[in-house]
């Protein structure tokens, strides 16, 4: 196998997306290296969430290919992509609010441990065994993310910071190779933000590749290995945090040009 290809977990080539004539993304190319943290930043409406939705299969791109471990995934349904090993969180928290913390994480294990309707209805030993397995894995994840104490609380009773953490935990439960985090620090206070950044680092330390969209620049600058900057659906810069911070195009995009 080609060494370069293996290095790139995700390879986005020429991706474009139009919504009813409106260009949300145009001719986007970038790669994510295995085992790194890559951040996608850009002002509002730059197309970051659209990019996430394409990668995770919410809808196919109008043009271009997305390769995950050298295999095209751009036309796969979301659940198939999840099966391949990409998991995600959402910008507006999409926890299963009618479930407990534990159940949310157990739901995350769905891709790996599946039981049939019949065997779970009859509570066959096999399904019982799998259920125990799911429980073990979920508990492990919960201890890892530090919510081990709150397993039986309803998900929507948690504080915002904990909900964000839980959503990340749920994404981890499927033991993915790539996690896509959509604004993990949005709305969090300083302490919570700190917790979230250390968690992301810890995830990365386990060898999981991370792709994240984030507005909180402190977080982005602190944790990412590489940053991709989008504006009006186009890539305007890509590079290390230091390089991005001093890139004039980025500053203009953020603080605005002359008005």
């Amino acid at each position: 196998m080609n060494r370069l290809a293996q290095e790139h977990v995700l390879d986005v080539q020429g991706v474009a997306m139009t919504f009813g004539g409106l260009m949300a993304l145009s001719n986007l190319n970038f790669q994510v290296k295995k085992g790194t943290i890559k951040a996608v930043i850009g002002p509002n409406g730059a197309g970051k969430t659209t990019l996430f939705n394409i990668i995770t299969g919410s809808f196919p791109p109008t043009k271009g290919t997305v390769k995950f471990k050298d295999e095209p995934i751009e036309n796969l349904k979301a659940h198939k992509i999840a099966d391949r090993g990409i998991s995600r969180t959402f910008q507006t928290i999409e926890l299963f609010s009618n479930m407990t913390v534990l159940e949310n994480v157990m739901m995350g294990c769905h891709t790996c441990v599946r039981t049939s309707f019949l065997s779970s209805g009859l509570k066959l030993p096999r399904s019982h065994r799998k259920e125990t397995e799911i429980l073990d894995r979920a508990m492990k994840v919960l201890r890892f993310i530090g919510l081990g104490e709150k397993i039986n609380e309803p998900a929507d009773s948690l504080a915002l910071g904990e909900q964000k953490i839980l959503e990340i935990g749920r994404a981890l439960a499927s033991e993915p190779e790539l996690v896509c985090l959509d604004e993990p620090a949005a709305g969090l206070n300083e302490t919570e933000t700190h917790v979230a950044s250390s968690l992301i680092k810890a995830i990365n330390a386990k060898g999981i590749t991370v792709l994240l969209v984030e507005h909180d620049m402190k977080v982005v600058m602190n944790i990412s290995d590489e940053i991709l900057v989008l504006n009006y659906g186009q890539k305007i810069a890509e590079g290390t945090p230091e390089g991005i911070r001093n890139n004039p195009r980025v500053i203009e995009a953020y603080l605005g040009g002359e008005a």
Partner: protein
Amino acid sequence: MLKIEGISAAYHSIPVLKDVSIHVPKGKVVSIIGANGSGKSTLLKAISGLIKINQGRIQYQDQDITAIPAHRIVGLGISLVPEGRQLFAHLSVQDNIRLGAYHYFKKSNRAEIEQSVKQAYQIFPILEKRSKQIAGTLSGGEQQMLAIARALMGRPELLLLDEPSMGIAPLIVREIFNVIVNLNQAGTTILLVEQNAKAALKVAHHSYVLESGNIVLEGIAAELLHNPKVKEVYLGG
């Protein structure tokens, strides 16, 4: 003119505004800047009555408007140009503009309304050309103009603008900000929420910087423009 005293608000029980106080003097442009998710839009929604606040008081021209429902706020002289335009996307440009005059439509005669419509077209000539077009089919910049025109039809004394530059090409942004300056010079008080800090600080007299629901900086706009802390808020320390 507008006094906000220690308001807190939450969205789905997640606190978004924490004890925010703001003062908008008559005839001035006041801007609120801050990164995404800092609570700017929530603040404007709270003023215009779209969301309920948990604590604090909003006072407008010596009247407590904290508990007044949204559809009556506009009658008091406050119009909001909401984030993302929020047009009536399936109605024509004309209809969008006329509906802006809804709250006094019944009380005034046709000519008076048409006069206001004409004024709106004078401010944004492009809209007159597009008057029969369906609002949803306009370009982003035109939509933003339409949203402002619609708000102006409500004859506001205080105009609230939520990110007028969002997703719009720089050239148009400049045009819109010119309009904002002109409006202010014509006597309209303006509260402007912007992510585009430079643009906002240039047109504003006074400015507040919001971060995670708290006011972290406040001052004369021109001074803030050079304050390194602003860059830090945006691009991280």
